[in-house]
């Protein structure tokens, strides 16, 4: 397995990387001679190739240069500073450099660091400001004039932060701390057989894949045409991670549960239904047979083999419009063969996914997306073994209230918990520490629980749950004492 932690790895052409400036991230593919626009600046990534991930670059006119990691702070020998702002008047004339002067400096290609220094020297009020205010002033100007960009290796931490800041709508406003809870509550780890149903651009899937490190298997349930994996492709997983990633259409779940499922009833999916990202990941490219197969997989394959040969005989191959130009014929033939091979590959995987689900022994279920959670849970929990955790994310609390009630009625679950996390960031500086911004709401809600063996008769699993006492008696007593 590729256990390389990404740190220390070098930036290579074709990699998926993340650009970072202060707290802002952007995921980009590393390509030569390709203009990238980030934070109101444009540049080429050619010069970044070969450097180690985590390197900070300074943007010059039209390219990336590698600056020194540590910029020597220009120390003003005698640091003068005021004690308060009683004599500072805002007359708009404190900066002696005009707008045009600054523009001219920029056009000369003078380093941002020097521009900041000039601004300080030409500020009449700078020396009267308090030390704190001076710090703040320098920080503000640096942010504007010193364009430094760090290129980092993607990870769940970075990508989930990036998505929440940049495109929260695409991930149903799943805040990164909520995603962190899901991975822990779901006991996601190497070797699991997980069922994932998400419409979060593939971010949740990627997070689960990262935590499983290529060990075990994942069955992704998808609505409509195919799974969306735009965010998954940003992780830059090795191709081997995709060997044990299966997908299964949600629309076939009922037939699978009622044992009427057959591969023939599936519409032959057209080529354009496959997300392009998959191909860029090389998951569909020629690969040696997967080296690491769990026992259960090899046994299912053995049982499936019989079906597969029949399958291939009955398979409909989509007729292709072949152009009758002899010169192109060869290429076309290869194209068709390639398409057929890919389609066969997909159908084989689909049969395997169905077989894995039918075993009804999954190690967990993760649900996150734009669908009402109740029907998903009531069906998909059937595929999960007893004593396994499940987690459902929803942007809103109300659907989870209903889901909770329905699950309690149905039974087969225990330790149901409806929760939410709040996250608070802090500014920590000497004598200037305080909370930054509080994030509440908007991060979504989670319903988690553990599956148990279903009762054959009436469900009295509710009995256990119902043993809740509203308040422990000792607390009640305390309260009464308080009020007396």
């Amino acid at each position: 397995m590729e256990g390389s932690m990404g740190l220390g790895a070098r930036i290579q052409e074709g990699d998926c990387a993340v650009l970072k400036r202060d707290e802002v991230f952007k995921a980009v593919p590393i390509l030569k001679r390709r203009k990238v626009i980030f934070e109101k600046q444009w540049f080429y990534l050619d010069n970044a190739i070969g450097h180690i991930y985590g390197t900070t670059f300074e943007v010059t006119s039209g390219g990336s240069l590698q600056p020194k990691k540590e910029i020597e702070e220009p120390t003003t020998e005698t640091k003068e500073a005021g004690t308060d702002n009683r004599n500072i008047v805002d007359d708009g004339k404190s900066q002696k450099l005009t707008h045009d002067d600054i523009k001219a400096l920029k056009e000369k290609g003078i380093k941002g660091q020097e521009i900041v220094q000039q601004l300080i020297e030409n500020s009449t009020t700078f020396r009267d400001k308090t030390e704190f205010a001076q710090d703040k002033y320098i920080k503000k100007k640096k942010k504007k004039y010193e364009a430094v960009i760090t290129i980092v290796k993607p990870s769940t931490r970075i990508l989930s932060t990036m998505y929440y800041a940049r495109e929260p709508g695409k991930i149903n406003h799943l805040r990164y701390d909520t995603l962190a809870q899901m991975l822990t509550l779901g006991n996601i780890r190497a070797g699991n057989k997980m069922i994932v149903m998400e419409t979060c651009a593939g971010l949740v899937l990627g997070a689960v894949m990262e935590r499983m490190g290529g060990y075990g298997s994942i069955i992704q349930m998808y609505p409509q045409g195919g799974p969306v994996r735009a965010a998954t492709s940003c992780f830059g997983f090795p191709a081997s991670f995709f060997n044990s990633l299966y997908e299964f259409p949600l629309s076939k779940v009922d037939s699978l549960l009622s044992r009427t499922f057959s591969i023939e009833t599936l519409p032959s999916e057209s080529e354009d239904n496959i997300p392009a990202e998959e191909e860029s990941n090389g998951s569909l490219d020629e690969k040696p047979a997967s080296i690491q197969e769990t026992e259960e997989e090899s046994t299912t394959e053995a049982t499936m083999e019989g079906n597969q040969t029949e399958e291939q005989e009955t398979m409909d191959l989509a007729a292709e419009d072949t152009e009758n130009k002899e010169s192109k014929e060869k290429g076309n033939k290869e194209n068709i063969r390639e398409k057929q091979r890919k389609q066969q590959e997909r159908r084989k995987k689909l049969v395997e996914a169905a077989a894995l689900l039918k075993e009804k022994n999954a190690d967990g279920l993760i649900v996150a997306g734009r669908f009402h959670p109740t029907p998903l849970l009531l069906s998909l929990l059937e595929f999960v073994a007893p004593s396994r955790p499940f987690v459902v994310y929803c942007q809103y609390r109300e659907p989870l209230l209903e889901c909770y009630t329905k699950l309690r009625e149905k039974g087969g679950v225990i330790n149901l918990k409806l929760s939410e996390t709040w996250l608070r960031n802090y500014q920590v500086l000497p004598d200037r520490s305080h909370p930054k911004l509080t994030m509440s709401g908007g991060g979504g809600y989670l319903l988690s629980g553990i599956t148990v063996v279903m009762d054959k008769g009436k469900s009295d699993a509710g009995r256990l749950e119902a043993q809740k006492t509203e308040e422990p008696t000792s607390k009640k007593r305390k309260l009464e004492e308080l009020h007396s």
Partner: protein
Amino acid sequence: MSFVEYGDTIQEGDTAIVFLGHESMFPVKVQHGSKTQTKYGVIRHSSDLIGKKYGSKVTCSKGGWVVILHPTPELWTMNLPHRTQILYSTDISLITMMLELKPGSIVCESGTGSGSLSHAIIRTVAPTGHLYTVEFHQQRAEKAMEEFREHKVEHLVTVKNQDVCKNGFGVSNMADAVFLDIPSPWEAIGHAKSALKVEGGRFCSFSPCIEQVQRTCLALEEHGFTEINTLEILLRVYNVRTISLQIPDLGKAAEDNSNPGFDSSNQANQGVMCGSQQQGTAQFKSGVPLREMVGHTGYLTFATKSLS
């Protein structure tokens, strides 16, 4: 069973979780011939547990029953014997993600304490990663090692009994991540830096007091760490309840009871509402916050060591 692998049936030597009801459970070590007392009566391991499926119901002698659950780091956190104050799963989740832990990660931790976080780390870095955990209290270090053995994860963890502030983690340039939960983390930043790989890694420190955080941040800056970021995470749990609110009698004429004066259009899907006007109540489902919740556990300070 093991803490890093699911097993289907309960076997001798397993640590199983006996679930009695809402948030009421305890761990039990399964042994032939053993008995465990619960408020529903006795559980005989040989006949009631061994060979049974995890997640099944066990009827106790008094006719009551319990459910036996497969252990996970999260269930262990809720049930472990406290030797120190412990970290709970809410903080652990964020620590795991922000330290970028995954299978294969090499992690340094101090102090081991009661092993709550240790179990979660081991779960995440298995099967190819490793945890080096340092605990200066000899008895606690020994107890932790014993637990790791019992939970069949001793091959994934090394416990060292030393003072991390004086002697460090006992490894250098090996770790992908370092975690500190000690009273004076700023004294261990240098050791954390040298434990991390040359090409860099992630750092986290947990402290209850802001003064500790301030000193830690200063030390991190001095040692050249970047991306220094302090946050705090709070868990809010909701009880799901059906609430009835009385509709006030405003002396409306009897014939005008069709419109109670509020939107009852969603009656059907909510299963809501005044079955009859005489009752004069409206029902709805609500997620009611707990009367008391944990308001603060500690501040989490994260940082990155990058290649310098």
